[in-house]
């Protein structure tokens, strides 16, 4: 018998950044395993974070696998466990299990133009991917990031996005006009249409709230993207993370183990249970 | 082991009367046993049966709910409601076999520091021979 699959590894929080404050706050946590090693993971995978005494929550890993000094998670304060996470401080210890789930098929995407379309906290699962592809830029065609949030205050990775603009096209949007905002105003899907993205040799990955994912996929379809060219990540309530506890399934698929990354071609075939 | 058992009492005291009564006992330096953990509530009528079950579940040896005398409630009727509700709680706890002495209710006004100390003294003395409350205590 190997390692106990339910036993988290302990990690210490080495850095906390408050990305968004207000009613729907987001914080980014960087962690290091206490035993010095970590785990190997691929872009798109998630990990179970434990706040002992509170419980566990599945969070996508927002750092790129290329980064070796820390593991990063960006967390929206939503329920019991994420609230407890938000109360934690640098130096505190949490538990991490994983990595879990499938990943983005980066090998298949070599040589293609890649479009990232994120909304709100939905940029987190894409963030590692953005940096991974950027780090191996010669392997891919054009990289484009489209990101939208409710207001300018809700933008995650704000400084990093500014930095990113120097290296690849980044199109930001906010839902309603604000004084001083010079970029696009409207929903992510509208921004996708506005930028007239070409489906030619392209892959588009979208992640965000369910309604955003739906509208972005529709926009991409309108732009003549094929189902196979569109990817998204799905989330459902999870407990075990390893396809046994039985609650995150969409049809025969356990999102924790068989997901969270799906092409629209695959997801379309599954029942609407997410 | 000869050390005497010291019961732990959770007391839900209404802010306007009983809590003030216990304060009076304190500032007047009246002597009474230190076995009580007071929890101030707005009114005895606001004490949910859940609080009482929960106190026993987390290891209380006795639970006291104390409010204003009938007619003196800051919210006019709160203690009358409490009287009914907690009568039912008391009957229920007795029905499942909890020692009836473990759940008590009292009326203590802001001026009755003396009465408060007496109630606590009596309560502690009644609980001591019963030993620790293990029945409803969480047993992981």
């Amino acid at each position, binding site marked *: *018998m*190997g390692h*106990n*699959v*339910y*036993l*988290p590894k*302990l990690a210490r929080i080495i850095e906390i950044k408050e990305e968004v404050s207000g009613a729907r706050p987001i914080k980014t946590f960087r962690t290091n395993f*206490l035993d010095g090693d970590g785990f190997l993971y691929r872009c798109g995978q998630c990990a179970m974070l*434990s706040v*002992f*005494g*509170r*419980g*566990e929550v599945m969070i996508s890993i927002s750092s790129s696998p290329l980064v070796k000094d820390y593991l990063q998670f960006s967390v929206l304060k*939503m*329920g*019991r466990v*994420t609230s407890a996470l938000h109360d934690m401080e640098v*130096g*505190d*210890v949490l*538990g991490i299990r994983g990595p879990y789930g499938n990943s983005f098929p980066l090998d298949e995407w070599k040589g293609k133009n890649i479009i990232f379309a994120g909304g709100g906290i939905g940029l987190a699962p894409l963030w590692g991917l953005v940096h991974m592809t950027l780090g191996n830029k010669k392997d891919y065609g054009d990289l484009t990031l489209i990101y939208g949030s409710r207001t300018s205050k809700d933008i995650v990775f704000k400084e990093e996005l500014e930095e990113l603009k120097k290296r690849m096209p980044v199109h930001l949007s906010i839902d309603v006009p604000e004084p001083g905002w010079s970029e696009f105003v409207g929903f992510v899907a509208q921004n996708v249409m506005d930028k007239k993205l070409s489906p030619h040799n392209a892959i588009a990955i979208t992640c965000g709230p*369910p309604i955003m994912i739906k509208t972005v996929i529709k926009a991409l379809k309108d732009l003549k993207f094929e189902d196979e060219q569109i990817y998204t990540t799905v*989330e*459902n*309530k999870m*407990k*075990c993370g*390893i*396809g*046994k*506890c*039985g*609650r*995150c*399934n*969409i*049809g*025969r698929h356990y999102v924790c*183990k068989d997901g969270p990354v799906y092409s629209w071609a695959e997801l379309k075939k599954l*029942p609407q*249970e*997410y | 082991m000869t050390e005497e058992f010291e019961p732990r009492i959770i007391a839900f005291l209404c802010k306007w009367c009983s809590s003030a009564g216990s304060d009076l006992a304190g500032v007047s330096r009246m002597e009474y046993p230190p076995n009580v953990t007071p929890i101030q509530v707005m009114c005895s009528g606001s004490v949910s049966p859940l609080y009482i079950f929960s106190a026993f579940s987390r290891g209380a040896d006795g639970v006291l709910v104390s409010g204003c005398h009938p007619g003196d409630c800051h919210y006019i009727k709160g203690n009358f409601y409490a009287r009914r509700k907690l009568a039912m709680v008391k009957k229920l706890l007795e029905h499942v076999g909890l020692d009836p002495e473990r759940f008590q209710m009292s009326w203590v006004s802001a001026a009755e520091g003396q009465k408060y100390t007496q109630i606590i003294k009596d309560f502690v003395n009644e609980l001591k021979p019963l030993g620790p409350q293990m029945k409803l205590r969480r047993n*992981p």
Partner: protein
Amino acid sequence: MEIPKILSGEMMDKILAKKDFPEWLKKLEAYRVYAPRKQDDVWNYEPVSGPGNVQLADVMTAVPAKKIVFPQREYFFEFRETDDNGTKLTELLPEDNPVVVFGVRPCEGKAVTLTDKVFSGEFEDPYYWKRRNATTLVGLACGTPPSPNCFCTSVNGSPHSKEGLDLLLTDLGETFYAEALTKKGEKLILEGQKLFKDPKPEDKKKAEKIQVEAEKKIRRKLNRIENVPLKLKGMFDSPFWDDESMSCIRCGICTYLCPTCHCFDMNDEVETTTPLQGKRVRTWDTCQFPDFTMHSSGHNPRPEKSSRLRQRINHKFQYFVEIWQNYQCTGCGRCISLCPVGIDIIKVVEKVRDYGS
């Protein structure tokens, strides 16, 4: 993970006189022994208090034998806050002590082979397997169906199925015909070796006859369900589920008492807060509770009881078949007999089969 089987050719068939059964139990001192016991008109697998207190009969317990290998509650680990703002985790694996369960119904044995699949694979469940490996399941072939709602023969089972069992006993009246099926079962016979005799050819014939007769006594049938998995796939959005679930009251009986249901919850139970100390605990959970799939945002992918009944049927007759090529139902009939409102899985599946035709 797999339970070592006895190779064919070294099968161990024996005869045990019923009067010697308590003697055998006495030899099993090293084991914690479970058997069905009746309390308040309800049968359940309970620890046996003494060797004379086991009466093996054709009874159906309320809670299936899965509770021995997959208890309703178990510890995963303890967490404890340390002085230096750290945390110490202590793994709490079950003990190795051997367990033997008597009177296991063949449908429950088969059910265990299904949970075996779930708890194996890439992420092997150490808690399940620790218990599973320590447990010897002694089946009792059903002479008469222990429940009026038995339908094992319709879901690839039988009242004398050997799957998942370590030892199968068949009641021959004065004796038990005992067939060791695994090394564990063989060991159990060896513990009381002197009590067991070699069977005569007519004993084997008698056992076989009883087993064949038993099959005929099963009244309920669920026929022609080969196409049900495919059918279910096409019925996901059908109003059928609304109608079928009208009388469901969303309790957990059908799933908690199902020998194949394995869904669970994990929670941190805090014992003290300063310093923090407690345990992570696994408990059964069920797809029939509304909070099972509810996101913390309040969004619920299965908000209605119709979607939850659909999940139960789909999981048993479609998803599980797609993943493991087996129905996740062994026909014990508990969910039918014990449903407070009489929802009958046989009828639901039959209606699915006949839907639209």
